Every structure is written in C-alpha cells, then in structure tokens.
C-alpha cells in the first residue's frame, strides 16, 4: 500500500534539521540500515539547503515543500521551491561548481544527492522554481546481508 506525507516550512536554516529528521522518521517504518538512513538524511539536507540559499537567496519568507511516498520498500521524495530556479542544470550538477563561493559552498550538493540516492531528477525554471526528486530503496536490503 502507498503511504504519503507532505510538509512545508519557511526557508530558514534552522528548519533543515527538522526536514531531514521528518523524512527519516517517515522512512523508519521500512526498517532501513543506519547507513541508508544517513544517506537519505544527507540527500534531503542538500536539497533543502539548495532551496533555501539558492532558490530563495536565504529569504525566510520563501516556502519549501516536501512530499514523500513509500511504496514497495522504496521512498520517493520531492523537494520543491518557488524560488529563482537554476539557469543551467548540467552546470549546477558538476562537482565543485557553485554560484556562491563567497559563502564557502563546496559545490557538492547534487553530486552527493546522485551518489546517495538511486534515482535523481531535477526540474527547474527561472520563473517557477525548482523541483528535486529522488528515490531510494530502503527495505529488503538487510536480508542480503544475512549469512
């Protein structure tokens, strides 16, 4: 059976921890491994940070939307903002590329999301904002480890 949750919150840095913990708590019913849960939290944190500092330029009036669906042991997460959008997605995905070097951004957000999830999709428009979607298989992996 499919199970969905949605949350939305102001683009405040202090909400980053809340957002990744909320998604991780929702995913916990799939009994994921500690490493998989850490990877999921990291991917959420990267996408939410991007929405806040790039999408909304750290303007707390912006709203970040997250929806997550669990089905067949997999979590499907959609993180959306209505901010300025990404002009060149391929360039943004390049490791170490950042538009904010002055803020000591590592430029590793999308690289980390790609490595820590099973499937990453990015849609963006400079008029309507950015949608980041990723999927991660969480249940049923533990059985493979039993010897």
């Amino acid at each position, binding site marked *: 059976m499919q199970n969905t949750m949605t949350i939305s919150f102001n683009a405040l840095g202090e909400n*980053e921890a809340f957002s990744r913990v909320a998604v991780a708590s929702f995913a916990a019913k799939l009994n994921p491994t500690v490493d998989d849960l850490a990877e999921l*939290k*990291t991917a959420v944190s990267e996408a939410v*940070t991007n929405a806040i500092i790039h999408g909304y330029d750290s303007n707390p009036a912006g709203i970040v939307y997250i929806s997550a669906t669990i089905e067949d042991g997999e979590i499907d997460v959609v993180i959306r903002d209505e901010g300025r959008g990404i002009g060149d997605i391929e360039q943004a995905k390049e490791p170490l590329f950042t538009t904010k070097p002055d803020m*000591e951004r*590592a430029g590793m*957000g999308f690289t*980390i999301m790609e490595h820590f999830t099973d499937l990453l999709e990015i849609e963006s428009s400079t008029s309507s904002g950015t949608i980041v979607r990723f999927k991660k298989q969480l249940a049923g992996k533990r059985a493979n480890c039993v010897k």
Partner: protein
Amino acid sequence: MVTMKAEARGKVLIIRLTGELDHYYSEQVKEFTEQQIEANQTQHLIWNLSGLPFMDSSGLGVILGRYRQVNEMGGSVTVCGLNTQVKRLFQLSGLFKIMYVDQTEQEALNRLEESSCKTR
C-alpha cells in the same frame, strides 16, 4: 545543534565538534575556527569529528575554507574520527587528496610530532 571546543598545543590546533553540522551551523563553526586559528597562530589543524553523527556539504565547505587558511601559512589539515557517512562525503569531494585522515586525535598528534622531528 553543534558544540565546538578548541585546544591549542603549540602550533597545533584541535577543533572538536559534536552534533549535526549543516548549513545552519556552518557559519558559527567557520567564525569560531577562524578566530581560533588567528589567536593561536595555528600551523596545523586537526578536526576531531568523532562526535559528529551527521554532516552535509556545508560542513565540507567550512573544512575546505579552513584548509585554505592554514595552507597559506604552510600548514596542514587532518580529520579524524569520521563515521561512514562523513567519510563518504570526504571521498566524493576528493578532500582526502589534500588532507590527512587518522582514526583518532592521538594518532594525528603522533604523526605531526614525528614529522616535525624529521624536519628539525
């Protein structure tokens, strides 16, 4: 929440972080460490991350920024006490190519002590 502790041993500065290091706390960690490096005239920096169960790329940015700071003075950066998730972030970003990695703070201190003996 992140708590930060600093201990200077001569030219070596140890920064111990506990908590979850994300964008929200990265500015505080940056300012604290930057000030400690200047106040102690640090040459070699050791990050003890054994109390850090979570970090994202904002943390990598701060650590890279401080690498640039001490590297300009001919110093080195060591990270120790990394958990699996944090270690993977370092691997993905290539930071292990420019920084030392040790299991524990003591190992890092021993290595720095040995290298300073050799150059004496």
